[in-house]
């Protein structure tokens, strides 16, 4: 699969690097090391140059993503409308920090500088769905849509049952 993507591009042409990395990431969700090695050989540049580019741009990631990717917009307009609290709320609800993936690989929480939907700030974007004018109260309801069908009872609920 990776080969097919790489073969689409001409050899020894440095300018294709970023589109190539974008395609690899689209296919795999991240940039796997072995594919990058193939790409480096194909373009004829060193692995370190690729690493340099891949770590420079915010878009690229070297670790796999979760099933659902949550992007929290932290643009100016969203910031003014308290997106910091939304981010904190999501972090506590998922028990991860921004940039991390949950243990069950269901959610990845990312921060983006601006989604460009400032008029309906604060915005979060889960996969391809946009949620505008989000409040902290809504977070649980929104996340529920993306939970696997039968979630394991959380420890808190288990306590209540014991009581």
């Amino acid at each position, binding site marked *: 699969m990776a080969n097919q993507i790489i073969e689409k591009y001409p050899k020894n042409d440095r300018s294709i690097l970023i589109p190539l990395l974008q395609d690899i990431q689209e296919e795999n969700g991240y940039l796997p090391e072995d594919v990058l090695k193939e790409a480096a050989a194909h373009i004829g540049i060193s692995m370190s140059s690729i690493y340099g580019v891949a770590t420079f741009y915010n878009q690229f990631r070297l670790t796999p993503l979760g099933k659902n990717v949550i992007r929290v917009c932290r643009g100016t307009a969203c910031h003014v409308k308290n997106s910091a*609290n939304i981010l904190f709320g999501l972090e506590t609800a998922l028990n991860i920090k921004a940039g991390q993936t949950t243990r069950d690989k269901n959610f990845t929480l990312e921060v983006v500088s601006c*989604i460009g939907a400032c*008029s309906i700030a604060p915005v979060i974007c889960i996969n391809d769905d946009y949620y505008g004018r989000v409040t902290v109260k809504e977070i649980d309801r929104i996340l529920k849509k993306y939970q696997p069908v039968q979630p394991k009872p959380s420890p808190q609920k288990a306590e209540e049952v014991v009581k």
Partner: protein
Amino acid sequence: MKNFMEKCCSECWHTPENQCQYFVQCCTEGPLCHHSDECTAKIKEYNAQLLFKKHDEPVIFIGAGTCGLAAGAAKVEETIKTELAKHNINATIIRTGCIGYCAREPIVDIKLPNGERIAYCEVTPKLVPKLVQTTIIDGGVLESNLLGSHERKSEICSSLYDNPFFALQKKIVLENCGIINPDSIDAYIANGGFRGINKALKLMTNEEVVKEILDSGLRGRGGAGFPTGKKWELAMKQKSDTKYIICNADEGDPGAFMDRSVLESDPYKLIEGMMIAGYAIGANFGYIYCRAEYPLAISRLTHCIEECEKYGILGENILNSGFNFRLKIKKGAGAFVCGEETALIASIEGKRGMPKPRPPFPVVAGLWGKPTVINNVETLANISSIINKGAEWFASVGTDRSRGTKVFALSGKIVNTGLVEIPMGITLEDVVFKIGGGIPFNKKFKAVQIGGPSGGCLPMSVIQTPVEYETLKEVGAMMGSGGFVVMDEDTCMVDIARFFLNFIKDESCGKCVPCREGTKRMLEIIERIPVAYDDKNDKTDQLNRFKGIIGLKRLAEVIKDTSLCGLGQSAPNPVLSGLKYFKDEYEEHLFDRHCRAGVCKELLTFSIDNTLCTGCGLCKKKCPNEAIVGQKGEGHFILQDKCIQCGMCLETCRFCAINVN
């Protein structure tokens, strides 16, 4: 006729490979190469269809830009379809871009045969049955959600242009946005599209095109405001077999979305602008460097470029003029610094997006060492109108030093969020209070942030400033790409400075020391301001904070003077403008340990009002540090030494029982 490529009769011979020079005129005015009343009538009828002057079915326009879709336009469209099917009504549904009034989205326009095009706002799926019943079946007007008629003088309801949001605007760049179907090249041609390139290719030499742009006084809309004509002139004079024109659509400014809207709502206008630019400077190849965060814009652009190639408007020997032009989209990979010209070029070349020292300027040695002109989306979207209507017409809009219009993205604490295009020279006050409708919930206006992270925050005292490149610079902001974020009394200026510095620190490419190290130090100084310390009597901390502020201004000046590129040079602006206009707020944080806006959480204490607390336990569940205790059904308490001031309890409480001091 199904499209303009369908021949009117056997006389027409236009194909993408072998082009007719009259193609564009022929599409709107009837065949020019032969005389046939039948062909003219055929073309006229198709134009009337495209302009919705003549149609048998009701036409429903749905605003489906990213903002519209986020507001639920797709669901509304689905509901409309099922509702129409229920009543057995045939109607044409057209997805348009964004008309700019994002606050009231989803916006749906309905045009009955021989009727006016009437816009309705805040159309939810629930409202659809009522809307369809009142407007399409009964032929009336749904007053509750009425926005207005697209006609300037309407006979049945108020006009869109009576609405203050639209009344003060002057639309050049956004004239088609939200009006036409952005995917249809035919609709663009029928609405006067490609006349600019047609005129340039037929009647003007490239020197004349450059002169026209010079005379118009158009200045770069990406931020710095360099005269576009000058840039083109420099590139035109370069002797080189290959030149490039690049459209900078890497709209990295947080709080700005005008480029996205143009790309989504009127992509052909940009393509036409790029073609004219290519013809003027002698470039046969263009790149559109677009943010990857704008998937809808990229897919629309891709489609539009394909359409243009199919029509022969992009490719070899365009309109039989001997001019060749091809366009390619390059997806950005998310780096704010790539808005800087040399960094953008490095990124297209497949390198890390780091700026280079100038000179040589890109117009001399740019992409792959060839002369390259880089223009912003909005700049290029102005071009076709200037060529079409003339420099004089364009120069008559705006002020002496800043000609034309500027698109602003109104956002933040303002009633009418959205996209507005205003003639240069009107005051900030008009934009905020007349077009923007003022501040919601009767709050007080505090500042408006113009120009993104490179701009500044302007307070009430300078709100009479006219919108011009120079005047905005004088008061400590800059035009920037057009972010216009309004802040009210609940916004803390120290927090805003911290926010921007954090952004700049993250986005600094790391090449030059002043920007890489300097912005980090500035952030540290600002971050130290609101932090609460355990020992309130420790004077060394207070002294350090104070010393930091004294050094802050000097550090800012050094970064400004010595950074390599525009990003670093303008990085301290948010802090400098903050210190200039909101010094009292900084001092309040420093000496009184008080944040008047209640944003700097380190300075707040949270407590629960037990007369209001119902003991639902929601805050207890939400508290990340288990700082809330209490029995279910009884009043809860916050343990102050455990509280981390995150504010989650305040956000989640349904009974307003959380007090903040």
